[in-house]
């Protein structure tokens, strides 16, 4: 898939936030997470697979999500990730941080 003008690469650090948000309602495996992000952002946000899995493992390591083996739609074994209590708290914090940041940036841009 060639790079597309309407698709944005993710800002450093925002991937964690998006993953946590995607996992808020239900546990899902890595592919579904990337699909979900792409889908909701209407294909504007493109998740690079090379950074998705390191991010998932990093979040697991920090204790914000936990992983369990389950069976995917295709009948294959897949690792399903789910939010932990700490992850839920982290999601709140990061959501707030993000809205503050984006608001601030928007304000700066409007001024200019």
């Amino acid at each position: 898939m060639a790079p597309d003008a309407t698709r944005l690469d993710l800002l450093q650090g925002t991937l964690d936030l998006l993953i946590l948000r995607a996992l808020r309602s239900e546990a899902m495996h890595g592919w579904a997470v990337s699909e979900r992000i792409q889908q909701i952002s209407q294909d504007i946000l493109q998740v690079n697979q090379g950074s998705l899995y390191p991010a998932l493992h990093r979040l697991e390591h920090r204790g914000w999500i936990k992983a369990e083996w389950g069976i995917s739609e295709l009948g294959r074994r897949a690792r399903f990730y789910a939010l932990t209590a700490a992850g839920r708290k982290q999601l709140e914090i990061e959501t707030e941080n993000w809205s503050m940041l984006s608001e601030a940036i928007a304000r700066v841009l409007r001024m200019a």
Partner: protein
Amino acid sequence: MFWRGVVLRLRALLFRHRMDEELEEELQSHIHMQAWKNRSGKLDPAEAMRLARLQFGSFVCATEECREQRGISSVEILAKDVHFAFRMLRKSPGFTTVALLTLALGIGANTAIFSVVNAVLLRPLPYADPSRLVLVSEARPQSGISGLGMSYPPFTELREGSHAFSAIAGFGAHALVLTGYGEPSEVSTVVVTSEFFSVLAAEPLLGRVFIPEDSRRGAAAVVVLSENLWRNRFGADAGIVGRSVTLDMRPYTVIGVMPASFHTPFVNQANQVWIPLAQDPLFSVWMTKPPGEHWMAVIARVRSGISSTEVQAELDTVGARLAKEFPAEKGWAIRIEPLQQAITGDVKLPLLLLLVAVGLVLLIACLNVANLLLSRATSRSKELAIRIALGAGKGRIARQLLTECAILGMLGGLIGTLVAYWGVATLVPLLPPGLPKFHSVRVDGWVLVFAFVLSLATSLVFGLAPVLSVAGSDPHKELGEGARAGESAGPRRARALLAVGEIALAMVLLTGAGLLMRSFAQLTSVNPGFEPHHVVKAMVSLPQFQYSTPKQWAAFSEELTTRLRAQPGMQDSAIAGPLPIVDCCVTLDFQIVGNPPLEEGAADAANYVPVSPRYFGVMGIPLVRGRLFNESDSSSTPAVALISEALAKRYFPNEDPLGRHLMFGFPVNGIVSREIVGIVGDIHDVSLGKEPGPMLYVPYAQAPLYGAEVVVKSTLSSSAVVGAIRTVTHGIDKNLPVTDIAPLPEVLNASVAQPRFRTLLLGLFAAIGLMLAAVGIFGVISYSVSRRTHELGIRMALGAQPGSVLGMILRETLALTLIGIAVGVSCALAAARLITHLLFKVPPYDPVTLGLVSLVLVAVGALAGYIPARRAMRVDPVVALRHE
């Protein structure tokens, strides 16, 4: 959170293979799902799969990044550092060998000494709750007497009335003759009150221990055997309890066997029996006498929750009451001391001294290795600079250098532990006999832990120098250094500092060793006041129940000495009570008849020896005035005594003691008045290290003992004399044991075993320290010469003479040595003050020792510098200028 991280990391480390497999499966599953999605876009399966792989990107990169997220990197870095460290060590075998040997020597010696300290000082006494055990003793503060045993009456007072002690027991030790099982032999007999085993909370291996009924008058005679005696003499007979054994010709019923792990405090012998005080032929008489004889060692268990001041307060009250009740207790006070301290007090300082000394050796070894590492770091500076330039952090490099040091330290520790095993095996037979033996000296778990911690600490100490030098380095300068092979001042100064430190430490060690050696030489050159050569001593004890009257004792000794003299080759023989130095000593109070009585609580005392007439001839003790004893001094003639010069000088300073009378004697025999008939020369009665004190001699025939030391003068070999003593004794009575046979010079030699032991070890450590310091100086100078080849070449090219180059290098060496000595002298003076107690007739600031030690160090320093200096002298300017 933290623990979760640890668990995940551990999982990552331990199940690395499985986790890698799982990761791959997870990523594969992702690709499959992507392919499935692609297929719904009407692609054929193979094409869909290809596209999915393409979309995923680099599989390897993703795997690698995921792995990094697991956080095992630090472990892997460590593994890499360890691997690299081993490679570096293998690459320079010379450096590695020298460093490892140095460290192994230092750590090994420390571990070996620590195993002695651990066994003797650190491990608690092997009794239940040993911290509550105390030694109770009597002291007469007015006369400066302390730490004496107790009399029986004060002991019973404490036993009945004490609230501070939950249990208290008294004991004394002597020897009884065991007959009936093999050769008649003496066994170490501990005479105890019935509470003895319960105070120490000791359980028997077989049978039972004493109960109060055993101490009643008229109770059956019972005995408890030591496991050792039970195994050696009775073949570990399981039915021993209830059997009868014969001690001093009297039957005792065995009631129990104590395990070998049980030790009587202060009594070291393995072949031991315990009997109740009431059953003892010797000490039981004191049970009914008024106080005055301080024969009994008393141990007690302090009730929990009672402080030592409270105990002391109670003891003071009891002491005051006793002083009112018994005149002999006036001026005496009862004291306590923790049992462990009482047992190990004497050996603590010498052992700690050895530990400190061996620690200094290790410190020198550390400085040496640090020096080697610094030299190597300088040669490796380019390598390190390149690595820093290529992006390695200084922290990362420091970490790797420290890993190298830790590996070096650990390997050194490993070899050091082997050295320690060997060292302990060598050390144990050398240990002086007086050392408490509650725990065997060996390399046990604690000692291994000590060696491990020591190795780590050592690595940190010697690793600091190279790491600091990296921290201060500038890759820019290092790489720009190019062809100029000089050396920056920093590391050079650091190495010089290390060498100075080594010399200073060696100075301290050498001074300590020198002082002890001088002191030991003084000690062994002391004239004991008697002539030990060609004199053999032996102990003959007479069973109390067979030889029960003093008349029999006197007759036996007369018979023995007469028969001994009749043997071919025997020049002379005599009998004496306690022999000087061999078995110290009987001290008796005496009164000068005709002098005003002393104030209350004070008393004059002298060491007391009953001797047979020819004793002074055998021992070579000169008669100063008057006459010696002769055969006509007997129990039916007037009581006489000889005094030593020291007594004459102290108590009869301005008058003639001959003809005066002294009142003294054992309370049993009754104290009698004796006329002073002569003055004999002073002898060292207690030990070589203690000045001769006042002595009282009485004729053996007037105050015989139930057993005594025989001294025989003969030019025959000592083994022939020993054989003759045995034959003659057994000719009189085949059941008499002859024990403690030894030539007197050997006994004198053994009496200085402790100072010899510490002098030997400290001397050894000082020698090692000196050698290591010499290697250190040699290393610094030769490295400096090799780094300065270029400079030296220029100097020579400009006309410097080889001799002046030699002088320059030697001056540098001497400067280092002299600074080291200057620093060392002040440290040595401070350290020597701490060992003043161990010195005999040598002041801690002894200028002779300091001077000699300094000379040795200068000589060794000059020698260590001369070898590289000569190499510098032979530098060829042409070669040197091309040198890089």
